[in-house]
């Protein structure tokens, strides 16, 4: 199993919630040959995260967010559990990310050392549609750059472990 995971959360049929899956689609090919990083799209949350996170050293979660304080399309980057959780890390019928991580640790799962989040400020998370809104669509290149930067940084950290 590769030590790094880009975990894209979202839903392809609910407007801006398609951001995560679109990032996953665009990264899939270039990460196929990567020795360090996988990209996975998962339309799930809560308990399901345990299986996805288990065994990885570092994880970057790509998701949508609504802070209501920034313009749609703005990218937010933060470590998990420190700031406002992103959209799919908070759910009415599941456990949230910090709880999932702690549960995993208590149950003896090999949970990641660190989890970061990059989330785009969404404009529309209510309309069933297969297209992103223009400001969120425009945020895709910046998000891809952020993901590649994260992989590069964490790949460097990985090297001493391989020696």
């Amino acid at each position, binding site marked *: 199993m590769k030590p790094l995971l880009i975990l894209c959360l979202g*839903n*392809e*049929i*609910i407007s801006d919630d398609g951001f995560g899956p679109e990032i996953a689609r665009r990264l899939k090919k270039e990460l196929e040959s990567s020795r360090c990083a996988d990209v996975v799209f998962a*339309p*799930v*949350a*809560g*308990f*399901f995260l*345990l299986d996805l996170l288990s065994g990885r050293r570092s994880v970057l979660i790509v998701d949508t967010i*609504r*802070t*209501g304080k920034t313009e749609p399309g703005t990218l937010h980057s933060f470590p998990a559990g420190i700031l*406002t*959780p992103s*959209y*799919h890390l*908070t*759910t*009415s*019928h*599941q*456990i*949230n990310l910090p*709880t999932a991580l*702690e*549960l995993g640790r*208590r*149950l003896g799962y090999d949970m990641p050392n660190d989890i970061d989040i990059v989330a785009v400020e969404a404009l529309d*998370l*209510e*309309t*069933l*549609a297969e297209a992103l809104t223009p400001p969120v669509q425009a945020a895709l290149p910046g998000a891809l750059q952020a993901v590649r930067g994260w992989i590069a940084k964490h790949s460097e950290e990985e090297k001493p472990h391989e020696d």
Partner: protein
Amino acid sequence: MKSIVIDPITRLEGHGKIHLFVNDDGSLANCYFQVPELRGFEMFAKGRPVEEMARITTRICGVCPDAHHMAAAKAADAVYGAQLPSAAVKLRNLVYNAFFAGDHTTHFFALGGPDFVCGPDAPPAERNILGVIAKVGLDAGKKVIAQRAAGQRIIEIIGGKKVHPVTAIPGGMSKRVTKEEQAEMIKLGEQMVEFAKFSLKIVDDIVLANKVYVDLIVSDMFTHKTYNMGLVDANNKVNFYDGKVRVVGPDGKEHCKYEPKDYLQYVAEHVESYSYLKYPFLKKVGWKGFVDGPDSGIYKASPLSRLNASDGMATPLAQAEYERFYETLTKDKSGKTMVHHTLATHWARIVELMQACETTLMLAKDPEIISDKIHNPPQGIVGEGVGIVEAPRGTLTHHYKTDQNGIVTEANLIVGTTNNNAPITMSIKRAAEGLIKKGTPITNGILNRIEMAFRAYDPCFGCATHSLPGEMPLEVVVHDAQTGEVTDIAQRNC
């Protein structure tokens, strides 16, 4: 008059709020539970093949994808006038019960149960599965994970995928089950039944053994005498996958029992100006506002209402627990005396968990499930179909009209939580009436008891709207209704 707004999701613009309108003397004038809906389903569905809806609608909601899969598949069966082979019905029923068990497990151990296992006054940070583990032991966490994994494996075997099943198609199923897979499912089913017994023991040891909790469950604050809805089989026993919709009155007498295709003759939807949400009610009784009683058409569709609407459970261990449930709460084990206590829904959920696990095991052992005859290709088209299943959180209706090629021209959904919009509103109001007093600060304990009133319904806004945070942030803003001035603010997890 003052207005108190409880905003459970201050971070997520446009989502639910609770408005409490308080008179100058401190009494509660009214309460509104406001949640915007997911928009555009009909437009999204139009122009798509109806058989695709079973795969598409699983993606509406990350919480009950299997319920949408089955309701849409049943509606598509009806659109094509398809008659399913017996083995296909058993496979659908089996996978659906496995899903149901997993969903009820999640709610009891991660969401609703912690209110009791950890206590209603426990800090929010402890009222979750970690708090349950701290109280019951680490082994409980391992069992919950194993139970969920068992359900997901069965969904993967029959449904083709762990989370979003894809195999129910018009006229049956698209994937056969092997003998080896059947053997594996029998083992998983046995494990699930043991887990249900373990869950019932927790209800016994931690909830029923605590008089304070029992008093809370049966208190007026959490009681509403509404109609009750649920699917029943030919013997009026609880069924999650199929049957007729039965509705009983607050006195327990049958109000109606109908085929899914006739739902519009019995259910109508009331609209309030303040909310995008619709409030379903019984057409023949009528909408009389947010009041309970036999003259108000408001009904509940929940684990508790399914027990009330039936004459019992379909499996032996669940039936024994059903009798204990009614004996304890009404002194009448027959179930003919209704239980109207909202918080008893948590216990009812575990009674249902037992039936779901027993049914999973029973069907896993059925020799017919490895039959090759799992699909009858449709021979014609009717052009309209309704599919109803019991989602864990309430009766789920999918209704499609199509052209002669099976392309959707009209679509309508009534999702589980939507059924309960009016009861949830009333439950919040009743809880708030008992708790919000003039001059009394709004504490975390008060906020949680109001939350408990709607958490019992296991509301999911994943498809009724979208998502709410798992650890519910609450913000209570007290306004002077005349001037709009903010006079008090109470927040949690904001």
